[in-house]
């Protein structure tokens, strides 16, 4: 019985993977213009950063505004090493990620003593500090002028010249990030994070080091943000302090919440939606932000679990309507009953 189940799951998985590859690698780039691709590119970059925010929020239950700070750290580290030592961007990107994570561990050790609102506010402060430093430290960050002509992605003689080339690179990195993060929730560390989110007392009495779990989650989030920042710099060929402002942080948080914090696919949907929304709402002209604000409030009120929550409710209803039963594992029923119940 289990085998058959696995088969059905595998088939759905394989088909969706195939469709996914077809859609994202072939359909989109061949059916959109350069402009839409730039929008996709920024959505993919935001998505990478948002994975981190979603891990913090959905798994660990902490609202963090810090992702622009770590994006900046990743971006400037990568660009600095890349431009001064001529190292391949793909390698410097990883260095940027590691530097972000290192800083996150150090900062996290201080900030994770704070609970709830105070942690949130301290990340806002962190974001402000980071922006000020990026804007002021001219020798490294280029100050307010930023660093133009950042090297493009290159590998084995291939250079990402156009936005389409960047799209493939970013998509691949985003997929890797997605796969890495998606599995995280099913590990023991993922469960540790969830118990920290839901009930710290339960966490403590089941042997979970709450402090270390939080710091680690913060570092992981910073890692994703660092990669995203480096991608932003290399794909737009430019890095400047105004990429990493507090208002960007609020945008990221909105994207995550609109998508649905529980699931990374939801986060992806939210990111795409919020990034595309201004494009769709363009006919509204100066009322864009008004409609956007009202929309955000309504979404929070009527679907607090975001798009993902809406989607799973919808599927639940369909299953109920057509009497499709979920595969469940009954516990506590006698073995004989189990046979009969089937």
């Amino acid at each position, binding site marked *: 019985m289990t085998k058959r189940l696995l088969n059905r799951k595998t088939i759905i998985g394989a088909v969706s993977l195939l469709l996914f590859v077809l859609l994202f690698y072939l359909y989109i780039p061949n059916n959109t213009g350069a402009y839409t691709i730039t929008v996709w590119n920024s959505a993919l970059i935001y998505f990478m950063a948002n994975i981190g925010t979603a891990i913090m929020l959905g798994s660990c239950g902490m609202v963090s505004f810090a992702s622009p700070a770590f994006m900046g750290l990743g971006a400037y580290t990568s660009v600095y090493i890349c431009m001064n030592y001529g190292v391949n961007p793909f390698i410097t990107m990883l260095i940027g990620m590691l530097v972000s994570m290192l800083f996150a561990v150090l900062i996290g050790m201080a900030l994770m003593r704070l609970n709830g609102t105070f942690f949130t506010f301290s990340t806002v402060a962190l974001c402000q500090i980071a922006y000020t430093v990026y804007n002021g430290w001219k020798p490294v960050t280029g100050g307010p002028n930023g660093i133009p002509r950042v090297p493009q992605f290159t590998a084995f003689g291939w250079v990402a010249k156009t936005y389409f080339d960047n799209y493939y690179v970013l998509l691949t990195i985003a997929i890797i990030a997605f796969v890495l993060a998606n599995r995280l929730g099913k590990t023991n560390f993922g469960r540790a994070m969830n118990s920290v989110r839901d009930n710290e007392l339960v966490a403590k009495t089941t042997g979970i080091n709450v402090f270390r779990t939080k710091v680690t989650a913060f570092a992981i989030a910073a890692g994703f943000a660092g990669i995203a920042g480096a991608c932003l710099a290399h794909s737009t060929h430019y890095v400047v302090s105004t990429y990493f402002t507090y208002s960007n942080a609020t945008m990221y948080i909105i994207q995550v919440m609109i998508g649905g914090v529980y699931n990374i696919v939801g986060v992806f949907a939210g990111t795409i939606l919020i990034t595309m929304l201004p494009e769709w709402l363009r006919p509204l002209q100066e009322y*864009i932000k008004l409609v956007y604000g009202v929309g955000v409030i309504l979404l929070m009120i009527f679907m607090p679990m975001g798009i993902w929550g809406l989607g799973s409710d919808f599927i639940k209803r369909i299953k109920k309507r057509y009497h499709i039963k979920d595969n469940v594992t009954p516990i506590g029923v006698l073995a004989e009953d189990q046979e009969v119940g089937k």
Partner: protein
Amino acid sequence: MKKLITLLLAVLIVFGMTACGNGGGGNEGGGAEAETIRIGVVSTFSGNNSGHGEYCKEGAELWKEEVNANGGINGKLVELVYEDNGDTNESYQSAFVKMLSEDNVVAVYSNGFSDQVTMVIPDADTYQIPFLAGNSSQACLNQGSDYYWMIRLSDAIVSPTMANACVDLLNMSKVAILQVNDSYGDGMADFVEEALKARGAEVALRLSFDGDVVQFNSYLAQVEAAGVDGIVGIAHQEQCGPLMMQIDAAEIDVPLMGCSQFATALAIDTAGESADGWYSLADWTNEADTETAQAFVKAYTEKWGRVPDMQSVVCYDAMHILQAAIESIDGEITPAAINEAIYKTNNIVGAMSTYKCDSSNPAYEHCLGQSIFTTQTVNGSGVVIGVAQR
């Protein structure tokens, strides 16, 4: 179940997205292209700086009406295409790339911030479409792009003029520079400091503040303590008013010189009496006494019911430069041909200045502006006391 939702969402998103993309693209092009000249304007029409976009659009629309009333350029009517660049740098780039790749325009004007312009200059190169910009950062010229054109005077050119005015006109010898710490302010302050030093004036203090700061008292306490005999201010339009008011309230009685933002109607209006006595090196003032300038102000005020801003006039003049360039083309009007024609720009009289492409100094070749006003604010209006040629 999770996979099912995933699949559903992915499909929905993708089709929604591409449908939108195609829909947007489908409206453009086609038959209209042959008869009209399409010029793009990328500006901020939503969010915190939407004022810039409004002024810019009003200037452009005024020009379009004038041109089309006279039968267009070379018999072809002009059509303006607008893109809203939103709040972030990324959305600026998207809007700009959309303009270049999908809107079928032959040239683009944009009044984005300096860092945004810096970001998209490579895109203009890639698509080989002339890009006229309303910013004044030397860093943009330094990129050495073929397609980027600066309408105003570059900071590097203005700064010596400002230093001269400070030293000769206002007798400053020990100066405090108050600058906004963004791409515009920082670049400008560097050049001004250099130019002042070259003229033998001492820069005793250089204080920088963020773009959202409106409380300068702690800075002014330092300025006062330093005992300077002159202040140079470089700030955003919205900051100029409070800065002038606070300097007035602090009774710091030294000659004052500001960047072009200090002569804008908005800054003077908000500062009221406190604006009196400020000198400014301004690209534009509504009191400019040239014939074309007065005609522009009159036409603008009649059409829109308010006085123009610098954003309007820069855009208006950029359109005039394009008009002259397109008129000089014999054959087909292509972006490349227009760009070639801009290289031949010679003494075009705009509302703000005359424009000329001067290839004698390669560093400033793409900077078209020729003159800048020295103004003094008297009784709530900027009086032109001189015009400095470059």
